[in-house]
């Protein structure tokens, strides 16, 4: 429901990082979304073209990594993947587990298009382009 405004702040964050690196365009934005974060990945994908229009992120690819819900059981000392509405330990049944994954809502990385002039490029081969 608020995915558009969330996308807008994502675009702002990404644009700020791009500006810090002197990049004019953003090729790809990669985010991590937990299944218990309250954010719908489909709605984010849908909202992204609207949110990025006219910004450095226009035309960028939005990659979303969905993070499963995981709980840690202090009773049997195990960490397990569980459905988002069944957070008890699937091994021993202990109910008071601790959430260890699924709340993620993170801008992980972005791919920037860096303008480089021909002179610097003649000396560098494409496979030597630094990946930071």
């Amino acid at each position: 429901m608020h995915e558009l405004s969330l996308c807008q702040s994502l675009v702002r964050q990404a644009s700020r990082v791009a500006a810090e690196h002197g990049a004019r365009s953003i090729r790809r934005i990669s985010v991590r979304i937990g299944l218990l974060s309250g954010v719908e990945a489909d709605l984010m994908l849908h909202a992204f073209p609207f949110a990025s229009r006219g910004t450095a992120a226009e035309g960028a690819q939005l990659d979303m990594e969905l993070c499963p819900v995981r709980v840690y059981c202090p009773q049997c000392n195990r960490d397990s993947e569980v459905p988002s509405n069944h957070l008890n330990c699937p091994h021993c049944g202990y109910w008071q587990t601790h959430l260890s994954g699924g709340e993620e809502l993170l801008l992980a990385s972005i791919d920037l298009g860096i303008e480089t002039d021909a002179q610097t490029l003649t000396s560098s081969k494409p496979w030597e382009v630094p990946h930071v």
Partner: protein
Amino acid sequence: MCDTCGCAIPDHLYHATNEQTVRTVEVLEGLKAHNDQTARHNRHHFDAAGVLVINLMSSPGAGKTSLLEATIEALKSRYRIAVIEGDLDTENDAERIRAKGVPAVQITTGNACHLDADMVHQAVHALPIKDLDILFIENVGNLVCPASFDLGQHANVTLLSTPEGDDKPLKYPVMFRISDLVLITKTDLLAVLDDFSCAAVAAHIRQLANPAPVMALSSRQGRIEPWLNWLEEQMMKRRTPHFTPVTANARPSGVMRPHVRTHAHV
């Protein structure tokens, strides 16, 4: 192959024109970093003023305003209360609260699906919070969005009215998982809702690994004592030194941030 002209010379990826190389930058920044920062700031205000702040959430019409009216009636002789109203479209709820003789600030900006920390921050500066004991925030009626936005509250209280059905915690786990207290409202209707079970609600809350108390109330019939007692308990905790916010599920406030914002404070 060269991207620019299609020639097959291996080294010829770049031509004399300006070109772009792609560089990956790791960011690892929360998408709600701004909201979380403002929420911490709000919590700092609340703790400095010594006011207990309760965020009330529910689906539309579950009985938030009615519960507040009954609560104010019961507690206003002993506590100084104010309400921030998140009903973005009308002044109705704020007027109902004012009619009970306590201040209410209506939030009027923002998208109509949830309150965020910025909206609450503005409202906080419109209230004499140093002169308050309890501040209630009535969130927008919605079982989805409000759960994702920390406002700086000390406790999340979620209402579930009997006509909605006892399966709601399993359909909206994001909200019910982070609730510090679950109130089953409109229990006067249980007589005609034979398939609603309060025990099932409690079992579903435990299935979400949430130890929050589950209480059955009816604002209509004035049966709200367990909730009033819970509030008294929170007030007692407030008054004892080294107060730590309510329960296991109150969101981590971290170390109390100094006042880093640069706005004028009232």
